[in-house]
């Protein structure tokens, strides 16, 4: 068990444990609004229909913990991977705090990604290893269970456990092989829940490198089914079997693919709590970055978690002073347990935009861009509940499930460093959006691998981005958008090679609001490039917006969209903003000789934050400084331009 993963939270845990389990809270009011019906429990008989190109975007969570994660269990989470899938499919479950929980709409996919360290807790009796089988008592129970007398065996074991007569040889002690793993059970839950064409239950885990509480976690996602995934145990960080260095995780991934013929990819956890370690530019773990490091990282780390409950890590106002939307749901006070405060020089190495910029620089130096990642959002909830709706938010941990107290409690507090993060700062964010030809493990995984994805902070807006050299204004036609985009350009996550003589990149962009969400304010393109001196630069362009606003002639800025939020009533109206935004945009500052990237950012009109819904519901008083409104957003994977 990695205690340092949790050291900051121990105080919170012990306080919480006394309450959870025995305490039932009032049913929440969040389920007042009509809830969409769940996906059918029985699986669809028909084979999923595969489309020619991705016509549908699928929403899900690539990063959800259940009680199988040692810290989640300690927080009081009782739900298992099985429950997590049931919930994600839109069914009601009873949350660990005792209240009913149901999503407003089912998700399309889910990865239960429990921490690999200390994931195992299955008694070895079930696995029947040599030690157990050599012991008469162990063999007896093993045989009983295997022959279907599990009930009798369990009672016998419990009886012997109670009277202290379990053979010393098999008495399960931590650190001995007396526990197989919850891994097989996790796989089984995914296999049961997976429903090709309707709902994808991926097999995955989180590798939790956390030395000195600098968060370098990675989520590993399998393209494969149980036949291959069950042949391995997830990689851990504890030496000697595991390692906290991502380089070793990549070796494990390689070994898995070599030995099983399967495929895995890794998603780096939001780096905002890594204290400057997520995107190194000189050295990592005492080793100078070299061609090997950059190519291997680019090979395995296909996606980056840009937003989640522990804050959003797209951009930081210190790094992007001209971007008025950069100051968004930031967690920039320290590392994971608050033991080390953040310093400004760390920021450059832990935000997505600066990582993408550093990638261009490293490509120039070492020949490969290690930070050529697509963008997704996910929850990292430790509740088994991927419930990231502002008005139906079930928190990051079990103590943060709806209650009058969560508005004012401390989440992470470190007296020594002075770092303190409140529960209200936890975000109801986010989800991963994936453009795929069908809702299956293989199609969604392949889309992730080619980075045809975007991050959302919760709402399910539809976002398209195509890059090419000859899109024209008339291509911005909704009915032919996808056909045109794929035929004459590349989608998000793609590459543009050297520009034809005299041409600049053009982008066909479109966004449609969430069917039950807020209207859209604007569609922006964020460009990053290396200038003549090889220094990374960035610029944000407004390319499509609502309400016929005009750019300020002096600043070139688009005026704010306005605000209809009634905080006290936790309501807003769609009287401002647009249902759909569409445009063709040509880079006005293009230099064909330098590498660049372009990604889309779609911003909603202001809406109530979960804190406002809580105040309305529990009639409690927020602390000074509590944010009550939010402009939800989506971030697309970039399209890269390379002069070579």
């Amino acid at each position, binding site marked *: 068990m990695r205690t340092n993963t949790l050291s900051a939270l121990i105080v919170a845990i012990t306080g919480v444990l006394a309450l959870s389990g025995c305490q039932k809270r009032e049913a929440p009011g969040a389920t007042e609004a009509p809830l969409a019906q769940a996906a*059918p*429990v*029985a699986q669809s008989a028909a084979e999923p229909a595969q489309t020619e190109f991705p016509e549908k975007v699928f929403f899900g969570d690539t990063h959800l913990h259940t009680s199988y994660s040692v810290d989640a269990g300690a927080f009081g989470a009782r739900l298992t991977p099985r429950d997590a899938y049931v919930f994600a499919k839109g069914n009601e479950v009873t949350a660990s705090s005792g209240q009913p929980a149901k999503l407003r709409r089912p998700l399309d996919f889910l990865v239960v990604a429990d921490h690999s360290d200390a994931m195992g807790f299955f008694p070895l009796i079930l696995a029947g290893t040599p030690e157990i089988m050599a012991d008469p008592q162990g063999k007896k129970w093993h045989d009983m269970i295997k022959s279907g007398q599990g009930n009798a065996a369990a009672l016998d074991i419990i009886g012997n456990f109670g009277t202290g007569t379990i053979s010393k040889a098999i008495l399960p002690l931590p650190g001995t092989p007396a526990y197989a793993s919850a891994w097989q059970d996790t796989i089984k839950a995914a296999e049961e829940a997976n429903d090709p064409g309707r709902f994808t239950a991926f097999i995955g885990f989180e590798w939790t490198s956390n030395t000195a509480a600098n968060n370098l976690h990675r989520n590993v996602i399998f393209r494969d089914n149980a036949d291959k995934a069950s042949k391995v145990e997830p990689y851990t960080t504890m030496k000697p079997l595991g390692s906290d260095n991502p380089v070793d995780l990549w070796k494990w991934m390689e070994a898995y693919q070599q030995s099983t013929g399967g495929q895995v990819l890794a998603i780096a956890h939001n780096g905002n709590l890594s204290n400057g370690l997520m995107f190194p530019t000189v050295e990592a773990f005492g080793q100078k970055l070299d061609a090997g490091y950059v190519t291997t990282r680019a090979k395995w780390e296909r996606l980056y978690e840009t937003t989640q409950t522990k804050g959003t890590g797209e951009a930081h106002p210190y790094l992007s002073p001209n971007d008025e939307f950069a100051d968004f749901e930031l967690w920039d006070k320290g590392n994971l347990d608050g033991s080390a405060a953040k310093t400004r020089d760390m920021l450059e190495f832990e935000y997505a935009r600066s990582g993408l910029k550093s990638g261009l620089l490293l490509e120039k130096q070492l020949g490969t861009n290690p930070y050529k990642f697509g963008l997704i959002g996910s929850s990292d909830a430790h509740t088994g509940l991927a419930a990231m709706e502002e008005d139906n938010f079930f928190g990051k941990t079990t103590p943060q499930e709806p209650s009058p107290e969560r508005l004012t409690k401390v989440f992470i507090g470190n007296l020594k460093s002075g770092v303190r993060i409140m529960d209200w700062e936890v975000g109801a964010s986010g989800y991963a959006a994936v453009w795929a030809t069908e809702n299956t493990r293989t199609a969604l995984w392949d889309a992730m691998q080619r980075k045809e994805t975007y991050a959302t902070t919760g709402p399910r807006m539809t976002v398209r981005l195509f890059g090419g050299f000859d899109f024209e204004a008339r291509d911005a036609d909704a009915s032919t958008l996808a056909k045109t985009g794929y035929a004459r350009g590349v989608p998000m996550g793609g590459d543009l090679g050297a520009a034809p003589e005299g041409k600049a990149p053009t982008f066909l962009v479109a966004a449609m609001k969430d069917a039950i969400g807020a209207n859209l304010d604007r569609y922006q393109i964020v460009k990053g490039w290396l200038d003549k001196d090889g220094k990374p630069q960035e610029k944000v362009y407004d390319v499509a917006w609502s309400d016929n606003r005009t750019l300020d002639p002096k600043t070139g800025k688009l005026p704010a969209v306005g605000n209809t939020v009634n905080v006290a009533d936790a309501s807003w109206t769609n009287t401002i903003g647009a249902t759909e935004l569409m445009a063709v945009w040509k880079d006005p500052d293009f230099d064909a000789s330098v590498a660049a990237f372009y990604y889309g950012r779609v911003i909603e009109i202001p809406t109530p934050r979960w804190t406002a819904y809580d105040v309305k519901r529990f009639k409690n008083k927020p602390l000074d400084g509590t944010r009550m409104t939010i402009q939800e957003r989506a971030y697309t994977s970039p399209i890269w331009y390379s002069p070579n």
Partner: protein
Amino acid sequence: MRISSLLKEPLLHFLLIGMLLFLLYGKVAPTSAEGNRITVSRGAMAGLATQFQATWSRPPTPVELQGLVDSYVRDEILFREGVALGLVKDDPVIKRRVRQKLEVLIEEEGKSGGASDAELSAYLSSNAAKFQMPPVLSFEQVLFDPARYGDQLESAVSASLAALNKGATPESQGKGSMLPARVENLPLDLVVRDFGEEFGKALESAPVGQWTGPVPSGFGVHLLRISERKPGYVPSLDEARKAVTREWENDQRVAALANNYARLRKDYDVLIEGGNAEVPAK
């Protein structure tokens, strides 16, 4: 110095008494050499190697195996010392972990034996609502976004309705949208996912084969024509066997946990001081 005076020497007495105490301690001390032995059995060694193989898909090298053994021994020593210091006692994380393990053991009993077809059929019919399949819809639609029509909305919708009734294609109407104009065989819950609750409701009752509307949604208002609506139904056991079996097993597990807890709970007296679970006054 004579022997007799040596025998009277206090230092000698001191040494002799010390020696005696040392020997005596050796006889009665709780930490005998036996108690401090850690045996890395062949079984344990094989277990470590198996674990390595499971992680890396190859057996460990002798150096790697030695590393695993060293770590095993270290775990064992520190664990025993920690237990001796009482660090296990009242540790909420360990307590929760042990509870989890016991519950998994108990859940295992839920797996014993499979259900017969008769049991599954009975389960399916008593939980019919749970296994209900949704209606499946094929339809065409045209979106009118009020923001793009202003006060022309009503007239635009009626003009389009007239055109559609005369055979115009949905693609030729409205001002274009990323929403699909034609949808084939989409189950109702996915219609709701893509178009919202209100629109889904309308599809449940709208007439088949004729243009109708305006129907509101989160995007604006729509004209729509259903070409086919396959009604929802309760599947047969053969069709839903996998789901029924899974849910039945799940129910068994839940019941096993509840029954076992009830049985264990009976053996315990729980005394709540003051008679009620309340937060003590400060």
